[in-house]
């Protein structure tokens, strides 16, 4: 078999768009889905992870536990399917929600359940004395979390968060199932149209790998930037996870 990389310069039939341009557009969708979902995942993950460690609020703790178990125990593709087909059956208005929003929320919530567990682990790994000291200083519970516990907890869980960010980027490929024309959809469609599947898949694989590598490097950079001297003697800034 011979290589035919020129295939990327062919017009895709729409008049004026090459497969290369299409692939770059698709890459943009992949990054947009992953980026937005990451924001949702971090916010909800931090919130739910914090709630799971609250000392005197069994109801909130229960709610956060339900959140984590619900979103963590169902495969992400099934979750998207539920959001896309089943929820609109129950709430007809949900049919109008753009599929981009659905997939961002779906992926974001799925990932948030995993991040919540890491946040919880991070908080619980801190010595009890930290919380006690914060309260003794006269901080409220919220202030103790905001100024004492969470800043330390997030530093501790940066390496697993890096993995999570990279997984999210790759999980964004499920967006093709709800009609987002991201890289995986591009690959499936373009290989059929051009019959040059190997070239298309190699290019798409390279883009996924490149994106994941950039995420990895960015997280390692953040890890180094926020490192506090003397607090993490045992923790080296490798970030390769």
């Amino acid at each position: 078999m011979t290589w035919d990389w020129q295939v990327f310069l062919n017009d895709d039939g729409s008049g004026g768009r090459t497969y290369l341009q299409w692939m770059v557009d698709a890459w943009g969708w992949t990054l947009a889905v992953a980026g937005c979902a990451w924001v949702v995942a971090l916010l909800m993950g931090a919130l739910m992870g914090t709630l799971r460690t609250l000392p005197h609020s069994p109801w909130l703790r229960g709610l956060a536990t339900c959140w984590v178990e619900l979103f963590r125990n169902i495969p992400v593709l099934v979750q998207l399917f539920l959001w896309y087909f089943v929820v609109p059956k129950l709430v007809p208005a949900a049919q109008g929600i753009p599929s981009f929003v659905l997939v961002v929320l779906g992926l974001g919530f799925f990932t948030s359940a995993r991040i919540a567990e890491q946040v919880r682990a991070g908080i619980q790994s801190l010595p009890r004395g930290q919380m006690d000291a914060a309260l003794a200083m006269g901080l409220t519970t919220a202030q103790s979390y905001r100024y004492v516990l969470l800043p330390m907890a997030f530093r501790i869980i940066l390496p697993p968060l890096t993995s999570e960010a990279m997984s999210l980027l790759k999980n964004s490929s499920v967006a093709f199932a709800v009609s987002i024309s991201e890289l995986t959809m591009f690959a499936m469609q373009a290989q059929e149209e051009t019959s040059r599947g190997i070239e298309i898949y190699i290019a798409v694989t390279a883009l996924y790998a490149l994106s994941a590598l950039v995420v990895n490097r960015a997280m390692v950079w953040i890890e180094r930037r926020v490192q506090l001297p003397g607090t993490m003697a045992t923790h080296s800034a490798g970030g390769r996870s």
Partner: protein
Amino acid sequence: MKNRLFVYAAVAAATTVIPLVAGAQATDTLAKVKSAGSITMGVRDSSGALSYTLGDGKYVGYHIEICQRIVANIEKAVGKKLEIKYQPVTSQNRIPLVQNGTVDIECGSTTNNATRQKDVAFALTTYVEEVRIAVRTNSNITSIKQLDGKNLATTTGTTSVQTLRKHERATGVDFKEVFGKDHADSFLLLESGRAEAFVMDGQILAGNIATSKNPTDFHIVGEVLNVEPIAIMVRKDDPAMKKVADDTIRELQKSGELPKLYDKWFVQPIPPKNTRIGLAASEATKAAWANLNDKPMEDYAKK
């Protein structure tokens, strides 16, 4: 650092060597199956009545039955009984698997087009697919023109997506395409009202409608959007193998069996649930039978 260099080198080597190895396969399929005592048939899990599975590793369909006839003639040609092995393929891997010798004859739903003819060879066209529109019966849509600005479902990884794109460009209409990840998904888009129409190969539409909850709720309407010759695929540059396949199809045509096979799979009830696809042979398919040929899709568009 050394480690990392090694990984890069290995990846580079793998990407260049694998295709070379794949290209180095012998192209004399008859000799190959004779010495192996078996022939590998590439089959699809769910390509409508052309090629599908009953579960338990059983594969049936119009093209599989034709392939079984071809294998019978190959057995005569090599003078040996052959064991038939079934290898499920997908639209992504079917061409590489035929090229590298994993699959000896692909009996699925592959469109014969000019690009693919550079990589593989096709037997005489046995089925001509027409891309059609399915809508809900209560929607009053009868033509593609009425779908301007409406949601249209089609399936990712099919030629219909490109057909729609070309159609939009040629006529200036603007569809909002929604893509199902498989045909069942696309049909669900139509059923749930997320899409007003489902554009796909006629036999796939007919099959999905036949197996839906209320088949009378859906019907196929409007013009034929595209015509594609579907053929059985064999390795390129292997004239002996292609001749056996072509001669078998000619025999079936001459004896009048070809329309009977079509009727058996597309009109009569078929396993596993004894549903009927109920799709009579199109004029294009009948024309292909009357004038057996292996012309690619591009030649059909010229007409």
